[in-house]
C-alpha cells in the first residue's frame, strides 16, 4: 500500500466528473441562502454533518469490505431525492471508469457488472480506495473532503467568490472533517458486525428539496 494513492484519489483533477456537480450549492445560491463566504461555510458545515457524514461512512464501510450491494441499498434509503440518486449513480459510474483503469481489481469489476448504470458514488469510492490499497479512514477522508470542497469550488464560480475565501472556509472546517471521519469509521466498523442499519442517516431537508427544484431548471451551470 502507498499513502500517496490517497493523493491521487482525492485530487480534484482525478478524472471522475465531480467538477460538474455543486453538491446543492447552485440551488442554495439561487434561493438566496448562500450570498458569500459566511453562508458557504454554514452550508458546507450542515452538508458535512448530514449527507457528508453518511457518504463518508458508506465509503469507509465499502473500504472495509462490507457487501457493496447492501451498501448501495443503504445509500438509496438515505437518499430520498430521486434527483440526488440519479446524480450519485452518474458520479459512481464515472468514478468506476477512472478507478478500474487506475487500480484494476476484481471487486471493482464485479460491482461494475452488478450496477451497469452506476452504483452510488461513495460505495464506488470506498471500493476504489480498497483497490488502491487504502483503508477505511482514507476513504472517509476522501469522501468527507470532496463533499465540502465541491460546493466551495462551485460557489467560487457561481458568486465570483474570492478563491482565497473559499479555501479559508475549507481550512476552518478541517477539524470538523476530522470528527466526521472518526465517527464514520466507527460506524463502518459497527456495520461490519451489525449490518448497514448501523450506518448514520443524517438528512438535510433543504438539500433534498433544493435538488428536486434544481433538476427541473431548464438551464443550470452544474448537474446537481
Amino acid at each position, binding site marked *: 500500500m502507498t499513502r500517496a494513492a490517497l493523493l491521487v484519489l482525492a485530487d480534484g483533477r482525478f478524472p471522475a466528473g465531480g467538477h460538474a456537480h455543486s453538491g*446543492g450549492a447552485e*440551488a*442554495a445560491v439561487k*434561493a438566496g*441562502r*448562500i450570498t458569500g463566504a459566511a*453562508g458557504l461555510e*454554514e*452550508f*458546507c*458545515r*450542515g*452538508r*458535512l*454533518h*448530514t449527507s457528508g*457524514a453518511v457518504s463518508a461512512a458508506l465509503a469507509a464501510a465499502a473500504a472495509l469490505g462490507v457487501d457493496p450491494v447492501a451498501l448501495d*441499498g*443503504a445509500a*438509496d*434509503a*438515505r437518499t*430520498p*431525492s*430521486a*434527483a440526488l*440518486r440519479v446524480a450519485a449513480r452518474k458520479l459512481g459510474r464515472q468514478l468506476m471508469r477512472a478507478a478500474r483503469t487506475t487500480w484494476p481489481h476484481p471487486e471493482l469489476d464485479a460491482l461494475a457488472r452488478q450496477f451497469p448504470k452506476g452504483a452510488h458514488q461513495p460505495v464506488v469510492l470506498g471500493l476504489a480506495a480498497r483497490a488502491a490499497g487504502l483503508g477505511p479512514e482514507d476513504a472517509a477522508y476522501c469522501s468527507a473532503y470532496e463533499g465540502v470542497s465541491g460546493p466551495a469550488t462551485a460557489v467560487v464560480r457561481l458568486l465570483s467568490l474570492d478563491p482565497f475565501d473559499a479555501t479559508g472556509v475549507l481550512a476552518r472546517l478541517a477539524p*470538523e472533517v476530522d470528527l466526521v471521519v472518526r465517527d464514520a469509521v466507527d460506524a463502518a466498523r459497527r456495520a461490519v458486525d451489525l449490518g*448497514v*442499519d448501523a450506518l*448514520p*442517516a*443524517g*438528512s*438535510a*431537508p*433543504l*438539500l*433534498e*428539496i*433544493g435538488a*428536486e*427544484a434544481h*433538476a*427541473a431548471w431548464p438551464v443550470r451551470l452544474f448537474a446537481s
Partner: protein
Amino acid sequence: MGARAARRVDGVTVTGAPAGVRSSARIAARGDGRGGTALPVLESEGSFALRRTRAVAAAEARVMLVGAMSGPLGGDHFTVEAHADEGARLHVGSVAATLALPGQAKGEARYDVRLTVADGARLDWLPEQLISAGGSELRVTTRADLAPGARLVLREEQVLGRTGEEPGRLTSRLTVHHAGRPLLDQELACGPGAPGGWDGPAVLAGHRALGQLVVVRPEFGTDRPAAAVLDEAGTAALTPLAGPAVLVTAVAPDALRLRRTLDAALLRLA
C-alpha cells in the same frame, strides 16, 4: 399517573424507576373476517391511554393515542407499538401535540415507535406534532417494517420550540424497511449541541417546523408519481423513493403552514 404526580409534588424522584417514567402503548389490529377490523390488543401504561373512536370508513378501526400526562420529560422512555396484521385497516392519531420538556431527571428522554404492516393490511399513522421545547432533550426513533404488499401512510411533524422560544435538542430517526430491505432511513438532529450547520442553508435555514409524509402502496412499484416541487418558495417537494413509495419533505415557518402543505400533498396523492 400516581408516579408522575408524586414526582411533581415532592420535587424529587420517588418512582420505582431510577429516573424518568416508562410509558408504553400497544395496538394490534387484524381483519375480523366480516370486512371490518378487530383490535385484539389495545394496552397502555404510564402516561398513555388508548381510545377506540368512530371509524370514518367501514373497514377501518380508528385509535387515538391520549397523553394522560405531559412529557416526555428528561429521563422518560416512551414506547408505542402498532401492528396492522392480515386484513387490517388501522388508523392511529393522537388527541394533542406531544411536548418534549426538560425534566428534573438528568439525561435525554426517548420515544420509540415500532410499526409493522402485513401483506394486504393498511396503516395510517397520523399523530399530531412533536414540539421540542427549550431545554428539552429528546431522541425519537420511528421504525416501520412492511411486508411486500403492505400499505402505509405515515406523517411526522417536528416543531422546534414553542412560539418565540429556542428549541431543545431533538434527534429524530425515521427508518422504513420494505420486504426486509431499507426503503427510507433519515435522521435529523437539531437544537443546542447538535452537529453544526443544522440551522444553516443546507438543512433548515431558520425554518422552525419540518415534516415528512411517507406513502407506501404496492401500485407505486409500477406507477409512481413523478418528483415535484410543491410550492413557489421551494420549501416542499415530493419524490419517488427507490421502492413502491413516495416521500414528501417540507419545512415551514410554523406548524400551521407545515400542516397545510402536508394536507395538500396527501390530497394530491389520494
